[in-house]
């Protein structure tokens, strides 16, 4: 699989950014689970699962980029007695997309407010079939992610238009930034600066989610 191109000066920063995304995602997942435990709101459990998947995806992505930054892919492969570095890198990238898409499908399913489990598994199957059967898995993965981000964003736009609350506004803007970020990632392969912009947009989105979380807890 191809990898997104990161400018050399941004190497390492991307891994730190992704680790920060993971921390925010896990924090939200933990609180969503607490809401589920206390209130019995079933959406809370699925919501927690979706952010846990996203958190795991970011940890994997951060680890991959950390190894790239430190030039340590080969060292780790020899330590783990893996013969091919390319296979190891493919496994890491595919694992990242596996968790990212699982997280987004789960989040999308939550926003659908449906109890039809078959719909969930259909979305999972269609997403992975699209990625695996595509001649350009990286582009296909980002495209699938972009489509889910767009639909989730529309849910949050509707949610804000119903409530007009500060929290729903912050979440709507956060997911708007995630849509922009996913768009940049889609074309990021052609230019390094887009890769950086995608990370900055994503950071903006997670900062907004964190601000919303802080305001709620205050």
């Amino acid at each position: 699989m191809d990898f997104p191109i990161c400018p050399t000066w941004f190497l390492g920063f991307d891994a730190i950014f992704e680790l920060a995304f993971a921390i925010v995602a896990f924090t939200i997942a933990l609180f969503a689970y607490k809401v589920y435990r206390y209130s019995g709101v079933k959406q809370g459990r699925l919501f927690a699962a979706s952010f846990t998947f996203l958190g795991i995806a970011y940890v994997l992505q951060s680890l991959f980029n950390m190894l790239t930054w430190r030039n340590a892919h080969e060292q780790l492969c020899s330590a783990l007695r893996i013969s091919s570095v390319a296979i190891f890198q493919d496994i890491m990238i595919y694992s990242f997309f596996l968790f990212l898409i699982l997280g987004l499908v789960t989040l999308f399913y939550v926003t659908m407010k449906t109890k039809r489990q078959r719909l969930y598994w259909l979305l999972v199957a269609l997403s992975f079939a699209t990625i695996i059967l595509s001649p350009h898995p990286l582009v296909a993965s980002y495209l699938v992610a972009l489509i889910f981000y767009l639909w989730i964003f529309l849910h949050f736009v509707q949610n804000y238009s119903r409530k007009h609350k500060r929290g729903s506004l912050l979440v709507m803007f956060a997911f708007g930034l995630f849509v922009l970020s996913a768009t940049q990632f889609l074309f990021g392969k052609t230019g390094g600066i887009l890769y950086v912009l995608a990370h900055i947009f994503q950071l903006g989105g997670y900062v907004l989610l964190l601000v919303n979380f802080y305001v709620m807890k205050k």
Partner: protein
Amino acid sequence: MKRNRLDIIHDILIVLKERGNNMKPTHILYKSNLSHKMLKLYLGELMEKELVREEAIKDGKKRYSLTPKGFDFLREFSAMKGFIESYGLEE
């Protein structure tokens, strides 16, 4: 406006807290504005979640009080409500 699950749980717990944290079920019923059947269901669930404890007093009568976890719920309630609202997680 129709109350959701979280609001009903909150109303039961706040009634317990504000009324000296030791109440008979009939008083909770009156103050929380629920039917007998619904209150029984909710109290069962709250005890299962360890938010409320039941104590048997004389003549088989029962009294209910908040547990430390119940007090914790009340402290976190507005954050949880805000969380559900901001992500549109209402059922």
